[in-house]
């Protein structure tokens, strides 16, 4: 596996660090280079870190329910910062309350995330997909 760089963190005023830290551990064990921003990370910091480390993907965690407010415009901010081809994943308890997952997913895909993951996702549930998406992207960009 080529050594991709992944930025992780929990967005907004959200302090739920446990799942995010487990993701970071799992990504490292899987051979990624991980830039772990931790809890309570403003959107801007994700983008700054991605630019500085030439990251391949940003994994945004949001657990506390206010993710739909915090994640607005995230893709636009990436583009503004020149991150044109960056892969954006989001996961956690993305909205307030219990909602039909497919509508929540649609909402975040429309916001520009490449993939969104529901509560209860484990690293092993998404890392294979991440690898595949990165490989596809690298091929498209002629980077393999």
């Amino acid at each position, binding site marked *: 596996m080529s050594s991709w760089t992944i930025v992780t963190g929990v967005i*907004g*005023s959200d*302090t739920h660090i446990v799942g995010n830290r487990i993701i970071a551990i799992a990504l490292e064990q899987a051979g990624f280079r991980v830039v772990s921003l931790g809890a309570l990370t403003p959107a801007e910091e994700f983008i700054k870190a991605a630019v500085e480390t030439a990251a391949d993907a940003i994994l945004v965690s949001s657990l506390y*329910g206010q993710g739909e*407010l915090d994640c607005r415009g995230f893709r636009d901010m990436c583009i503004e910062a020149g991150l044109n081809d960056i892969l954006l994943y989001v996961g956690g308890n993305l909205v*307030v*309350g*219990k909602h039909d997952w497919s509508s929540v997913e649609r909402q975040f895909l429309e916001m520009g995330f490449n993939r969104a993951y529901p*509560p209860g996702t484990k690293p092993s549930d998404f890392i294979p997909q991440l690898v595949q998406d990165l490989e596809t992207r690298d091929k498209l960009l002629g980077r393999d």
Partner: protein
Amino acid sequence: MTSSNDSLRNEPIPWDIFHEMRENNLSRWPTGAGVDLDAAVECHQRLPKQKRMAQVIRFAYEHHRTLTQPRGGFGTLGMHLELLRTLQDEGLADLLPTTTDSYTRNERFGEAERGMQESEQAGRSMLNGLPVVNLGVTECAKIVDSVDRPLIVLSGTTMPRLTAEITLAAGFSGYLGSGIAYTASYTKDTSIEQGIRNYQYLDRLVTLYGQRGVEIHRRQPSFLTGTLIPPAIAIAVAILDCLLAVTQGVTHYGLELGQCLCPVQDVAAIRACEELCQEYLTMFGFHNIFTPITSLHWMGAWPHDEAQAMALIVYGGFIAAAAGAVSVTTKSTHEAIGIPTKEANAAGLRATKAGIQLGASLALQGLRDVVDEIDLIKREVRDIVDKTLEMGDGDVCQGVLRACRAGVLDVPWSPNREIQSRVLPARELGGAIRMLDFGNVPIRREIQQFHQEQLQKRATAMGTPLSIDMAIQDVYGISEPLTALPNTLIELGQIG
């Protein structure tokens, strides 16, 4: 505010300085102007007894009752009032909450304002709680008026100063939070020092009310990150937070403990916590401090299966009652997914109440296993607290700050940079939470060995090595579907 250059000490804030601090604080957002202490005191004195949390808790304690209290807050006053009425009428809650939203908790009142407006427009809550500061005293007083229960503020934050001023002035009679616990579990960059300062303010404010004859139920949240917190760590932090609060003049200080879901350990933790806390208070010369225990439904990751979640809820009521906790704070079958609907929240309350009824006649303190576990927990807590106090050279605050820095006071899975988070918990076979890695937590060697042995037994039984993987597995443990349990029939099928 005392400038952060002065080194932090565990001393009561002098009243003149405190009054200056209050003025400063109240001017930070327009609604601060609505706070008037005389009016506030009058407002509390007009409350009927059953709406004064301090009295209700004392009464329940004396009569060996276990009260129920939900969590809950929605983004607009209207939604919130509807929620509270449901929790009172359908949920039969004894105590009512007002959870603030995360913007309010971080004093981002501008964002909170926007969230409230958008919730109003969307007709659903976009905030994870009620922005009480934006609402101000008069609006918050409507909450107190609209229900017939005492109200407690639930605001997991290191920045309670304005939120407390507004809500206490509005007639809220309970306030949850503390400097060490919340800083360690809710923040990344806030220093423990700053967190303690902010709660010194809150506790001084509560003392101000006390001097005017208004007793507020203060409460400490030792659940911390809620993620496999060993009782000894929770209790050590609770005691230290308690010493800080009583130094500011607080006399009624409840202690919360998250349930481990191991019955023996849960009962032992509750008993040990109350006894140890009184022991240290006496040692510091504090008498007549009331420190009842609140037990919390499992604070870690919940299962998605609602029937399975119900088991945690019922257990929570049952064990709280069996352990003699004065109240239990409830969750719902929606816990794994999102903030519960008011109906799910109410159902969680009722199931808890029914669980309390079933557990009330069971006094587990005398059980040999419980006695042993109490003894173990007490020795662990003393090792941590005594070392912390020793490091303070006579000042509890300095002891805490140094102990955190040294990892003597450590919290598993903490987001805070000042907390080492080296201690790594895992479960032994019987379910008790032990420490796989003690980091620098100064627990005596023979107890460390006992933990290791217990965990090794489990590793051996499972045929896996003792490693961080086991600890991570345990973070998910309780949330795993029942299909992941060992299946007796399959085992039998495989034999021979």
